[in-house]
């Protein structure tokens, strides 16, 4: 399979860091969130940040070759995804996006190209973005 380059892993890692931070800002700026949702949000933030860290480590040791096109497309929509999260009206929608994003990163970490394409499509749909 085509493997992912270090630069692309770093780009993806930055995307997850940005999403984690966008949710973090959302959490900090909305003190009245229901405690159950707040807990879910906290866990999701930590998961997104964990994955960002894992991707950054992988980029330092990953082998090269051509990158998966789905990952390249994802990097291009980084700003749109982050903005979508930032402008969400409700917490649940943000968690849905984060959950969809996590599926992508799990596929990337396991290096399964089919899963990357499927999960990238799912993330785009959840965010209302056409890849």
């Amino acid at each position, binding site marked *: 399979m085509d493997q992912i380059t270090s630069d692309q892993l770093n780009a993806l890692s930055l995307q997850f*860091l940005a999403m984690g931070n966008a949710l973090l800002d959302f*959490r900090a700026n909305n003190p009245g969130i229901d405690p159950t949702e707040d807990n879910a949000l906290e866990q999701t933030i*930590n998961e997104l*940040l964990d994955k960002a860290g894992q*991707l*950054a480590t992988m980029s330092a*040791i*990953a082998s090269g070759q051509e990158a998966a096109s789905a990952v390249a497309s994802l990097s291009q929509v980084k700003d749109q995804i982050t903005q979508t999260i930032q402008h969400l009206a409700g917490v649940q929608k943000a968690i849905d996006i984060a959950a969809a994003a996590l599926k992508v990163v799990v596929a990337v970490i396991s290096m399964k190209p089919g899963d990357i394409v499927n999960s990238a499509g799912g993330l785009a749909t959840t965010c209302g973005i056409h890849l």
Partner: protein
Amino acid sequence: MHKTLNSHVRAILYLATTISLLSVFAGCANLEKINDFASNAENGAAGFETLPVTFQSLCADNCREKDIDSGKLNPSKCDCTGEHLADSVDFLFYKTINGYLAGLEQLSAGKATSYNFDSLNDQLTNLKVPPAQAGAYTKLGSILTKAITDGYRRNKLKTYIKEANEPLQILLHYLRSNIGTSLMIKLSVNKSKLENDYLDLLKNSRGNDFEKRKIIEEFYAKEADFENRLAELKAYSALLQTIAQGHQQLTDNVDKPDKKSLETMLSQYASNIKDIRSQIQILEK
């Protein structure tokens, strides 16, 4: 007539000697600048050894924070295998880059090099190094070995510089990307997690305003520490970029007759490296 011929010969000899001496002086001045650049680059790159964080240290910090969050008194076993590998690859490339710069410094000073590449070569086989970087590493390594065994001297210096440039650029790019991007992302991740933890702490705090203020003050102090370390990584990354640009200029101009402009350029790069090193030293305090 004989006397005139002698005076002509003397004049030609004088001119020839003057030109030779000028060439030697020009050459020496050039070597001195190359030596100055190499010396500064080597000392600057050695800042790798005092970087404020490593992949492994960040992994350990992360594990400790998780233990604190879950109220564990005994530290959990922390799997930082990937991080250890990432640090090993960085260290290997750093040693190769610095080995080359040390060799360049020695050769430009007319001294023999004594770099031992074999010990590093053994490590390469134990690491999963990406092919492009491994190729660059092996090439630079073999140039270093040649510099030692083939008795590279001043007259071979240009060849040494030109052959080494491509692999050196790849390794510098890789190390810069690892430190200036990957390691910075990891540190930023830990910083964001800290923010999330303190946010949680503040939300759950049943203390009075004074206690809440203490939590916020502690958070700001820790955040400032993170910012300082991030600035240090950024400065080191900029330093590697300056070394790469300086060496590229050296390679592009080493054959050109305009030695003065090469000297000026090398002096500028050496000076920039010095400035960045000073910035790093201030941040380390």
